């Protein structure tokens, strides 16, 4: 490069963006502009997660549907036929699958998110980018599973001759809130996990318990009416039961859905606050 070109580059440097880091100044809550600068990294990390997950597996992407299908099969045999859980006249397999779809999305996204930061320690200690990208990518990777699971749901609805109603319009907002709730929880847990590795042990247990206090294998109508108000405090009740309603028709439980939305937003704010507060120390502690 010639001397004048070098001089031009130096001029350009002084006009360029200015970055100031001050130990005494705290950061904005979300840092949306900065996150946007790194949206391609978010994309590539999401794609990496998807590609790597089923590399060197014989069945590949079939695993995405295998898991909910196997659960559906087991639940149908033991809960549908042996225990005869009341499914309100809906064939039990599709009854269970319609709940397993949002539940699997939620639980796998939370588990994936919670372990994401610790799993990316090699990145965190070597290069800078907004750390929020990591749990977000981990949760986003599960959105693809949802698309595939939805296609299978369509097949089952045809098979069991379930007529679609206009209730279907609620599926996108329900999945969006489920995703936000999973993002909030996954982000929060991932930050705690950096310091307390207990999280890695706790999450599977927590999710198992959570599945049985949510209307996945049974209908929320099986819960006595006097407990209903307490029951819907579990934000997944409003998402899973209403997802069923969206598929099979009927009246939505709006109070339960409201609880879910409020929970998702509140948790997201808290997760962002907590993440921001601890983010500074990640590289030193992880």
């Amino acid at each position: 490069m010639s001397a004048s070109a070098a001089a031009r580059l130096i001029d350009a440097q002084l006009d360029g963006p200015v970055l100031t880091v001050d130990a005494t100044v705290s950061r904005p809550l979300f840092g949306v502009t900065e996150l946007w600068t790194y949206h391609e990294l978010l994309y590539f990390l999401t794609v990496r997660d998807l590609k790597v997950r089923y590399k060197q597996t014989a069945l590949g992407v079939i695993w995405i549907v295998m898991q909910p299908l196997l659960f559906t099969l087991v639940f149908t045999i033991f809960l549908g036929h042996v225990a005869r859980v009341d499914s309100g006249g809906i064939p039990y397999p599709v009854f269970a699958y319609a709940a397993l779809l949002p539940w699997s999305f939620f639980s796998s996204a939370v588990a994936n998110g919670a372990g994401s930061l610790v799993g990316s320690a090699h990145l965190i200690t070597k290069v800078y980018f907004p750390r929020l990208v990591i749990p977000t990518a981990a949760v986003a990777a599960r959105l693809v599973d949802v698309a595939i699971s939805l296609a299978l749901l369509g097949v089952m609805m045809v098979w069991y001759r379930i007529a679609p109603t206009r209730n279907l319009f609620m599926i996108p907002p329900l999945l969006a809130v489920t995703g936000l709730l999973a993002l909030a929880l996954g982000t929060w847990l991932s930050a705690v996990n950096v310091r307390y590795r207990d999280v890695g042990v706790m999450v599977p247990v927590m999710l198992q318990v959570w599945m049985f206090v949510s209307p996945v294998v049974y209908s929320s109508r099986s819960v006595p009416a006097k407990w209903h108000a307490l029951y819907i405090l579990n934000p997944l009740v409003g998402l899973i039961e209403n997802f069923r309603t969206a598929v099979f028709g009927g009246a939505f439980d709006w109070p339960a859905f409201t609880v879910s939305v409020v929970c998702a937003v509140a948790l997201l704010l808290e997760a962002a606050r907590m993440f921001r507060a601890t983010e500074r120390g990640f590289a030193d502690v992880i």
Partner: protein
Amino acid sequence: MQPIIRVEELGKSYRIGERQGPPRSLRELFSERVSFRSRSERRARAAQAASSTELWALRDINFDVQAGDVVGIVGRNGSGKSTLLKILSRISEPTCGRFQLRGRIASLLEVGTGFHPELTGRENIYLNGAILGMRREEIARDFDEIVSFAEVERFVDTPVKHYSSGMYMRLAFSVASQLESEILFVDEVLAVGDAAFQKKCMARMRAAAHAGRTVLFVSHNMAAVTALCDKAIALQQGALIYSGDVDGAVGLYDVPAGPDMVEWNGSAGDEDVQVVRTWARSLAADGTMHTAAAIEIGVELDVLQPIEQFILSFWLLSSYDYELAYCRYDDNDNSKPPLIPPGRMVKRWIIPADTLGAGTYTVRWALGLHMIKHIINGPEGSLTFTLQNTQGVGRRFVSPQGRGFVSLLRPNWEVR
């Protein structure tokens, strides 16, 4: 002119020792909360713990860098060089102070960050590029150049886990070196690898410097810093002790010629053999240690039981722990080694003059009974000595500290 990098009162502290900040597991957290201590007592203990275990890795760092400068950051291990680079790269947060950077930043603390073994070369180029902060169209534009520079054209769609380590390193470096930025932070870990790879790294960095980019280069290889940088800052135990042109820093950082004799006294070994003394000393007439002096390595030991198959040897290591030589005292014939009776034993090795280049060397002992056991296989009794090239051959084109850590070829070859 406004500096491109300005660092003011920057500091970083870590807490070390038994109590590392808050409890690390929840059980610890709960057991702490319910312990039966008065609140004031607990607070006093916490304050005491905080003050006694706080370590300042960096303290009160102030400096400016002008656009286009190539600055070496020098200092010994633990002086805070890498911490400073990590803070400026925003990986780690400062505890106090502030800094300002003008322009796009590229930070190479490691090559191949984020490479995933299951992904193909192509996929890793895009992923790694994004991690380093490149835009997708930039990567796409430079893709062919990255691949051809790394010489992996035929394997670009093969998972990198099937790559040889050389291919892997070349590809990783090739991506990193395409990064366009005004400010470049480089850690010397980059210069690990074979000689050809190091040369490529250095050539790329020199090109960056000539193109008017601002470079901060952390290293404790003074030869590399002298070759590449025009300015330098020196750190010592977290404090900035020098900022100015590179020659001044070299003089400051490099130790004066070591003591004329390095000695270890003690006792190491087992019930059969006890080493009581080891040493390295100069055999030059004036007794000083330099590259033109023959160096004697010696060991004194007590044999306590009659032993057979005795191995008495040492490794000569460079300051990067490269093994330069392995020496045994009785390796000359194939006859069965004799039975050694109890008693005192002294052995000496002589490294001829003008054999080792300037640098710091370590003698690490390896004693044992062949096929039976190790007696010493570690740091016990090891010696570290430093040679400068102040006399003898090898001084025409390099400074006394230059051409580090290598053996010179013996210079008495006939040249026609």
